[in-house]
C-alpha cells in the first residue's frame, strides 16, 4: 500500500477465519494478530471478509448466525464481515493481482 497499490479485499478462508475469533487472549509478550488486522483495516479502510462455511465449521459466528444456530452470543470480532466464497472469486476477477498466503 505504501507503493501506491490499493487492496480490493482481504478474504479469509479455511483456518484463517480463526483470526476473527474475538475471544482470543494471547499472552502480553506475544503478537496479537487480531488487533493487528483491526488496526490495519481501520487505517486503510480494508474490507476484511470471511468465508461463512469456514466460519461455521470453526465456531466463528456473527449475531445473525448465532441466532440461526441458537448459540448464546456471537464470536466474531469487530471489523470483519462474514460472506461467501463468491467474494473471493469476485475479488480475483476484479483485481489485477491475487495474492494467496498459507498454501
Amino acid at each position, binding site marked *: 500500500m505504501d507503493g501506491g497499490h490499493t487492496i480490493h479485499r482481504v478474504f479469509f*478462508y*479455511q*483456518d484463517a477465519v480463526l483470526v476473527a475469533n474475538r475471544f482470543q487472549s494471547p499472552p502480553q509478550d506475544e503478537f496479537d494478530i487480531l488487533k493487528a488486522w483491526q488496526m490495519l483495516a481501520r487505517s486503510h479502510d480494508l474490507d476484511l471478509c470471511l468465508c461463512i*462455511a*469456514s466460519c461455521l*465449521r470453526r465456531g466463528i459466528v456473527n449475531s445473525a448466525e448465532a441466532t440461526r444456530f441458537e448459540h448464546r452470543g456471537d464470536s466474531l470480532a469487530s471489523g470483519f464481515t462474514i460472506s*461467501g*466464497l*463468491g467474494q*473471493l*472469486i*469476485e475479488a*480475483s*476477477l476484479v*483485481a489485477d*493481482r*491475487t495474492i*494467496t498466503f498459507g*498454501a
Partner: protein
Amino acid sequence: MKQLLFIQSQRPGSTITAQESFDALLAGSAFAEVSVVFVGEGVLQLVIPQTLHEMPPRKAFNAGFSAMPDFDIHKVYCCAASFREKGLDHQTIRVRPELVESDALSKLWLNADSVLCF
C-alpha cells in the same frame, strides 16, 4: 472471460483443507473459466480411498471430482513429477487428469489471469 487457475496442494485426510479447496474451485467455476492443477501432496486427493477409517471421519469428497465436467471444469491437470513420486497410476485415481511436466506447468501459471493456491 477471465481465467482462474486453482492449485490444489493440500493432502486429504486428517484436516478439512483439501475438501474446502475443492469447494473454492466449484465456487470459481460459477463465475469464471477455471482450470485446476494438483501438485505435491495434493495429488493424493485424486486417490480413491480404500478405507475410510480416518479420525475424525471425513467425507470422501473426491467422489465429487467426477462431477467436475457438470461444473464446466474441463481443464484438470496433475503435476507429472508428483504423480510419479507418489507412485500413482490411472487405475487407482478418481478422474483422468492431464499429466503435465514442469515446463508445461509454468505455462499454465503464465496463461492464467489469477492463480489461487490452496
